């Protein structure tokens, strides 16, 4: 499973990312949330129910952590969840990205400094991910923040975003080779605000089989994953 933060449906189509689209793809409906917040949506995805209120009670949003038994992972015997917000998120690593984001607007660092860290973190996670899917887990979920992180300062710079989406597309292609089935989900997409990017009001899903899901809510996937496990 690939959790691709901030992956935008419209760019996936425009850039023709066949491996991200897989056999069936579409948008998710996240209108039940007051705001498209990353931790809120991923937590709800994992738990199969809307956790907005509960997550927002947390003082430090990014530190919110579900217990394994609250997530669909508990349905599996051997599982791995890498860097998943609301669950196994690496708070320290991502803190650096957020500082540099703030730093850019305070003119302390450049967009390049910011992008560089985002790319480094991405590559590190990619390595860990491929190591994990080489092992005999029943299910592996890799979370990649790249599209969202780069998108925040550059969603309107298409030449750059195209590179990012191509990279994620080849990530999906390689990952698919290891798996019987693959689900790709994003919490929300993005929309351009000048050169920058803001969260959009829909997410993205795709799966490697013919399946017409229409525009499912993010909590729907809990049941889908459970079903796949039984099959």
């Amino acid at each position: 499973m690939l959790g691709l933060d901030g992956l935008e449906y419209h760019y996936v189509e425009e850039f023709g990312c066949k491996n991200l689209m897989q056999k069936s793809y579409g948008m998710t409906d996240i209108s039940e949330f007051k705001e498209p917040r990353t931790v809120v949506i991923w937590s709800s995805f994992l738990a199969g129910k809307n956790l907005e209120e509960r997550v927002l009670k947390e003082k430090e949003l990014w530190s919110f952590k579900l217990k394994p038994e609250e997530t669909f992972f508990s349905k599996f015997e051997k599982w791995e969840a890498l860097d998943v917000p609301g669950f196994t998120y690496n708070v320290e690593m991502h803190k650096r990205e957020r500082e540099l984001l703030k730093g850019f607007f305070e003119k302390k660092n450049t967009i390049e400094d910011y992008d560089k860290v985002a790319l480094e973190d991405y590559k590190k996670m990619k390595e860990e991910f491929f190591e994990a899917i080489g092992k005999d887990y029943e299910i592996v979920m890799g979370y990649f923040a790249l599209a969202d992180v780069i998108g925040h300062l550059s969603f309107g710079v298409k030449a750059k975003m195209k590179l990012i989406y191509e990279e994620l597309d080849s990530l999906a292609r390689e990952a698919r080779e290891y798996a019987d089935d693959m689900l790709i989900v994003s919490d929300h997409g993005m929309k351009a605000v000048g050169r920058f990017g803001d969260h959009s009001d829909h997410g993205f899903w795709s799966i490697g089989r013919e399946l017409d899901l229409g525009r499912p809510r993010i909590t729907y996937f809990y049941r889908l994953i459970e079903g796949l496990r039984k099959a």
Partner: protein
Amino acid sequence: MFNVVIVGHVDHGKSTLIGRLLYDSGSVPEEKLKEIREVSDSLGREVEFSYLVDALEEERKGEMTIETTRTFFKSRKRDYSIIDAPGHLEFLKNMITGASQADASILIVDVAKGVEEQTKRHAYLLRLLGMEKVVVAINKMDLVGNDQRRFEEVKDDISSYLRTVGLNPLFVIPISAYLGDNVIGRSESMRWYKGPTLVEALDSMPERAGYPYFRMPVQDVYLVRGERVYVGNVISGRVRKGDEVHVTGSGKSARVEKIIVLDGELEEARAPKGIGISLDPDPMIGRGSILWNGKGLKGVKTIESTVFCTEELKSGEELEFSCSVQEAGCKVEVFERIDPISLKRRESEVLGANEIGRIGIRLDKEVFVESFKELPELGRFVLRRKGMIVGGGIIR
């Protein structure tokens, strides 16, 4: 500034070519390029040129009011502005309403796919718009192993189609927009080609000679210290204090008393320039007249023209006609419909939205026009129904 419009069938490589022109001419802002290059280096991926165009357009969003977008690049010889229309409808609408004015055009053809439907349609539209300086870029030469025979085949095809619509391409150039072959720099892989590169070809074209005679459509009249000042753009020629000028529609003539600009007065003004003029004796005219001298300005009450419709148009309809500042009521008669691909003409009393045809226009008063080729501002007109554009055309 030399304005170039790029047209061609979808996917034949317009955006890639524009990206390449920007990139190879060093016209992409350095910072942006660096930022994009760092990501591409880090991921080990190549930047796609067609998307560089967006990186630039975004900078100019503020200036964009119409559907076409412009990007700019510099050659060793001069500054270019590239007009890129998302589709031929927008392009045509803009050309006809005067939003864009091209000095030359590039028709791009994918060498592997050859001449396709839109290639023909666009070529026909170029002709309709009186664009005579056409360069054909046969693109994606890398896909056919830079094969000269295939190039000649496509070249013959497109040249013969262009001839049937009455266009004669100035150059037909084999390029690879993707690799940059024969765009700015000469290609090592097509030594058989001896002609100019695309930019050399553009550079060799003379700027459009300005129309020499003074023409100034009056846009507005202001009262400045009790004196009536006529405001508008000098669209051609020049005017000096003391010159005698004529006023269309009134049969009157007068002397130029003052030429007024924002920060004072001028002895002389040359096109293109927005000015105010006071005249003696004051002809007491309003918006819609044209001040002129030199070669006589032609007044007409009927016009026959090929038009492009954005809405349905029927014989016998009464519409509003405008050409520059001039407005009149008119009655139209549709003669025939023209298929832009087969060029077949069929008698018809109706033109549908997005169709082309020949019509006659009977005006309820005289308007003053020039041929589009000589003075585009007075050579194109727009037809409206209750203020909404229905179609437009140019005057030959």
